[in-house]
């Protein structure tokens, strides 16, 4: 017997909707097996992980707080991945956005400045992220260097750069030597939307990004060019599109969104700049992008689901002493299944009898 892939005559619309759901179900089953292997009751553990966070209002708020950066970054990354451009350094752009915006907050700290501070911080964050993302973009179009490797290397560099600032020049003089900046002033802080929770105005910005992203990708020439470059690069070139321009554009958009998410995170839930303030949002957003099928509305749903894995992981650590690393394992397994199920949209798996199959396959 032999399994072979057969290209479907046309992409199955049904499979496109169902495949992420199958992927999630398979990941949950794998997770249950993992719980059992670790000596926990799989059903109750799954409950603690994935249902308990949905039952109280504070956790629901946290879901929104954690989904906000994932959705914003994930939509930006979708632009790149649709065009077959591989920005995997969103984590670095997220950090640099946080640093760029924090600069103003640190400079104006303790002075009585007006309410213009926060909008300018958000702008600086987006600008910083976009400029940082343009480094791999320019290395690619000018020198042909692989954007995959350069964008990833820049994550490490961003991490060290931020570490230098908060341990050195930007350290809070009254902070008992902790590596952190002073807490941002109220005018430099993203306002809370729902009293009693940490849900902040960034969630609204994320929703606007979903809307704009959907329009830009689905209803504009630029969106069409991006999709065409990904689906048929040769055709795109023949029809006179400039691939370099699209590399710049997609990197700038994804960098700006990651940077904006970074400054919102720092000026919102965190309240000051400190090392390790990100639990790897820039990498998890890659999974959000694929789980959401590179579609802004899909990424919104995927971002909420992945936020659930973060909160569930923290929950499970406290409630049933499961290690936090399990969350990352789950996210990795989920991406495996998402990619595998996506393949079933383009291909049909067929079983062939050995003798006949081999002749057939090599005939």
């Amino acid at each position, binding site marked *: 017997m032999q*399994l*072979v*892939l*057969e*290209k479907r005559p046309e992409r199955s619309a049904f499979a496109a909707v169902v495949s992420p759901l199958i992927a999630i179900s398979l990941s949950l089953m794998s997770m249950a097996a993992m719980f059992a292997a670790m000596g926990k009751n799989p059903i109750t553990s799954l409950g603690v992980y994935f249902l308990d966070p949905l039952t109280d209002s504070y956790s629901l708020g946290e879901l929104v707080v954690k989904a906000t950066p994932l959705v914003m970054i994930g939509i930006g990354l979708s632009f790149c*991945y649709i065009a077959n451009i*591989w920005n*995997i350094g969103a984590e670095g752009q997220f950090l640099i956005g946080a640093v760029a915006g924090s600069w103003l907050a640190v400079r104006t700290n303790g002075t009585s400045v007006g309410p213009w501070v926060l909008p300018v911080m958000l702008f600086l964050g987006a600008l910083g992220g976009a400029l940082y993302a343009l*480094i791999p973009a320019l*290395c690619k179009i*000018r*020198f*042909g*260097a*692989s954007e*995959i*490797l*350069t964008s*990833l*290397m*820049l994550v*490490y*560099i961003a991490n*060290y*750069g931020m*570490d*230098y600032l908060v*341990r*050195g020049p930007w350290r809070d003089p009254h902070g008992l030597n902790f590596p952190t900046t002073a807490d941002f002033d109220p005018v430099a802080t993203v306002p809370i939307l729902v009293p009693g929770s940490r849900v902040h105005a960034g969630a609204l910005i994320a929703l606007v990004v979903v809307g704009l992203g959907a329009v830009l990708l689905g209803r504009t020439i630029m969106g069409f060019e991006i999709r065409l470059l990904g689906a048929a690069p040769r055709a795109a070139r023949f029809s006179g599109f400039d691939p370099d321009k699209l590399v710049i554009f997609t990197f700038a958009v994804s960098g700006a969104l990651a940077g904006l998410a970074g400054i919102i995170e720092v000026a919102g839930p965190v309240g000051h700049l400190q090392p390790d303030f990100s639990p790897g949002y820039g*990498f998890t957003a*890659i*999974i959000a992008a*694929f789980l959401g099928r590179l579609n802004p509305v899909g990424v919104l749903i995927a971002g909420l689901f992945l936020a659930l894995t973060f909160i569930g992981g923290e929950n499970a650590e406290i409630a049933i002493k499961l*290690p936090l*690393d*399990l*969350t*990352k*394992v*789950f*996210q*990795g*397994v989920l*991406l*495996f299944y998402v*990619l*595998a199920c*996506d*393949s*079933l949209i*383009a*291909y049909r*798996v067929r079983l062939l009898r050995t003798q006949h199959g081999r002749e*057939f*396959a*090599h*005939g």
Partner: protein
Amino acid sequence: MVESLIEIGKLIFSVSFILTVITASTPLLIAGAGELVAERSGVLNLGVEGMMIMGAACGFAGAYTSGSIVIGAVCGVLAGAACSAIFAALTLGLAVNQVAAGLALTIFGTGLSGLIGRGFVGARISPAPKLDLPVLTGLPGIGQIFFGQDAFVYASIALIVGIWYFLYRTRAGLVLRAVGDNHASAYALGYRVLRIRLLAVLFGGACAGLAGAFLPLAYTPFFIPGMTAGRGWIAVALVVFASWKPGRLVGGAYLFGAVTFLQLSVQALGLGIPPQLMSSLPYLATIAVLVLISSKRGTAGLAAPASLGLVFVPDR
């Protein structure tokens, strides 16, 4: 300042310089060698970082529980190969995009290694022994360099020589290169493209696992989560730097070893340079090297295997 420069100058011509370079380069060389073979067959596996950290965790777990470095190394190799088997199932079996699958493997490996290695954080083992020959190791200068290394270092050199011989002097190596350069033609000639690629990917995974195991078994005698610190990605970049040629990989890996030495010695001298800047050096160097190599290559002599990263589904 001048004194410091003289100090650095003295260090560069010292035996300890060469020894540090060799130790720092070995994991890059081993992981890069495996990735080179996989890429020569046309498969871009970006999961090297994930396979390496799994090799480190499983390698340390194996060595600590059994008390044997050899068993630890075997565990590392098996862990790397097992991870690459998942990657192969996705990319070769289900025609999944290789870049995305490699990223997934790195995320998965980082998480799972943390889970496996959790119980071993803080534990120590005695590191892999260094060769100690009667007269030879004691030779001034060269003795330690040539006859005083651990088994991983000799294995890395043997690996490179072996791969060079395999790729350029055997029929199987020729077939592997043909598959990487034009999978459709190789398939039409009757070669089992997917099977050859599977073997190349498994070999690459085994090497990455061994390279990862080197870190807790010989470099530092303990395991810390995330201890590979991007070495897997640097190894992938080195393959590009080496233009997919095993000989040049050695030069590239040793160049990066030298960067590590510079980082350590400048930190030791304390010139007031922020340590974070020195720690960023290997990553900055990787970007610089990629830019230089990619631009010099121009349009004429693209050295990459022509089918690298492309999905292959046998046509019936």
